């Protein structure tokens, strides 16, 4: 027999005390500080303490770049047909289905039209969480169409890269997208329509070896991993440890491979300034 007995049965689970803090705080992977998530969001998804740039999805990116976060999308009805019927440990078809479900996108990119400081622009933003932002036939075609649209309407183009490179599951077809995009970019270059490439974490492989490095200006976010070969491949090839900071945006800047490394909150003003330079008032 208990000396103390609770009259009303179980503990009342309702009330103030129920507020859970899980998911509201995050630990910065760089400075190890625990930070209120909202502060990060207000700081353009960068750590308020150490300015570590967290990866953001394509929609957040577009909202940050374009006036009032408003844009219209194009070409979002293109879907991969799994041309090789590729099956590794898991069928590519089921990877695609899962990625489409998780991201709500049909492939690893959004083609958008909007305004940047009042000036019409076309923005293609890559989605890293869709199979590593990899480029297959759909991404290739969507970028080619964005480039053509920009050329035809003489609208400045901005491509935001976030990609591991070509999509292996589409084999040589993904490789050919490099050729396709480079050919349409050559025509845009001939037409003198401005193109700014923004390289974000990570931009590697076939994306670096094509449009990401072909902007009139190539700018990157601080700390972004940018390279042709992945760090692991290089380590295995040369059989030595890579120097710290290797293939980070600052490293590329130092070696003359980038025009600028720009903090995320400065990117929009930077682009606006650059477009003033590249577009003459009519």
């Amino acid at each position: 027999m208990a000396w103390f007995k609770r009259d009303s049965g179980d503990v009342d689970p309702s009330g103030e005390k129920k507020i859970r803090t899980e998911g509201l705080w995050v630990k910065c992977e760089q400075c190890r500080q625990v930070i209120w998530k909202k502060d990060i969001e207000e700081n353009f998804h960068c750590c308020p303490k150490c300015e570590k740039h967290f990866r953001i999805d394509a929609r957040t990116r577009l909202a940050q770049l374009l006036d009032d976060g408003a844009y219209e999308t194009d070409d979002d009805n293109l879907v991969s047909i799994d041309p090789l019927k590729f099956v590794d440990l898991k069928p590519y078809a089921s990877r695609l289905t899962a990625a489409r479900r998780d991201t709500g996108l049909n492939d690893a990119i959004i083609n958008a039209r909007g305004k940047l400081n009042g000036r019409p622009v076309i923005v293609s933003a890559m989605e890293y969480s869709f199979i590593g932002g990899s480029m297959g036939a759909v991404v290739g075609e969507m970028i080619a169409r964005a480039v053509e649209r920009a050329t035809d309407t003489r609208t400045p183009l901005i491509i935001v890269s976030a990609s591991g490179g070509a999509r292996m599951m589409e084999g040589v077809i993904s490789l050919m997208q490099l050729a396709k995009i480079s050919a349409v970019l050559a025509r845009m270059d001939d037409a003198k329509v401005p193109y700014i490439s923004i390289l974000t974490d990570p931009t590697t492989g076939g994306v670096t070896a094509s449009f990401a490095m072909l902007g009139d200006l190539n700018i990157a976010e601080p700390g972004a991993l940018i390279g042709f070969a992945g760090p692991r491949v290089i380590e295995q090839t040369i059989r030595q440890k890579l120097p710290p900071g290797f293939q980070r945006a600052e490293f590329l800047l130092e070696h003359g491979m980038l025009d600028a490394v720009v903090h995320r909150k400065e990117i929009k003003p930077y682009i606006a300034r650059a477009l003033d330079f590249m577009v003459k008032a009519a």
Partner: protein
Amino acid sequence: MSLSATLGNEGYPRTAGLHTAVVAQEFLFLMVESHWKSSQNGHGVKMESVNKAQDELQRIEQQIGKLKSQPALAGPESGQQQAVQQQVKELQERVSALRRHIDSQLDAWQRTELARHPQRPYLLDYIERIFTDWSEIHGDRSFADDASIICGMARFHGEDVLVLGHQKARDTKQKVYRNFGMPNPEGYRKALRAMQFANKFGRPIFTFVDTPGAYPGIGAEERGQGEAIARNLLEMSRLRVPIITTITGEGGSGGALAIAIADRVLMMENSVYSVISPEGCASIMWRDPSKRDVAAQAMRITAKDLVEMNCVDGVVQEPEGGAHRDHEAATALLSTALLAHLAELKALPLEQMLEQRYQKFRTIGQFFRVEG
């Protein structure tokens, strides 16, 4: 093989002896044929048995060749002689049919092995046989001369052309010198510089691809491997001279594509072209590099696959058993193909040729569906 060995030394003065010799070769052929058939077990065959069968068949072919040049067969014709001649001809046809059959049975991984065969002709072997008056152009004028890509002026059937491509090597010292055919950025920049030089003076460009890929090293990244490749893709698409690319061996991803934006992209029968090496794909997707044969098959990397997917414009036949078995024949076949394609391109008005090149790459690899 003692039978064929003795046949090689002694002449056969009489047609009767000749007849025996032909029968002996026929016997050997039947042995190879039945051995070949029994080595197939439904899952394809081992590269070892392919090589062995091709070796034996090549030896039989040589012996038949010798028999044909015997004075007894070349002399005035008799009935018996005609019969023997007929027999020789038939045997020859059967041998070459079997060799072609064996070639057609190779899977993607076996083709990869052939594409990497150390005896396969390399670019300098082709240059020596297809072109004349070769004089090399070195250096990218900003950093170094990359020996894994060679460029130079040459003449093709008397016409001035630019030739460039990856160069591999056979002995260790040379392999290191050529960096195993894996260029650094300066290699691609040298190639672009040379192509713009040809463009300026209106000379056609021949490029030859045979690389495991662009070199993945620290220096390569520091000097902008990605940028160098990207720049080549863009600039090649708008060069105003005919460009013909041949994938002669390994077409390794961006490192291959960087010199393969052309009006005509040809693949030799046993070459491969892929976005990543079968080993690389296997270790990433299967987490097991030994699954390279499965990966090779899954990625569809053979010449036949690429033609079917409209990613290249044609296949150049190789001599039976592969280019490594007969450099002269392989070169002759390639030379004929290059000549025909160059003639076709030169017959086109320039603007039309450029528009065709653009349209080809604009519509390449279009595999998607439109929903809604």
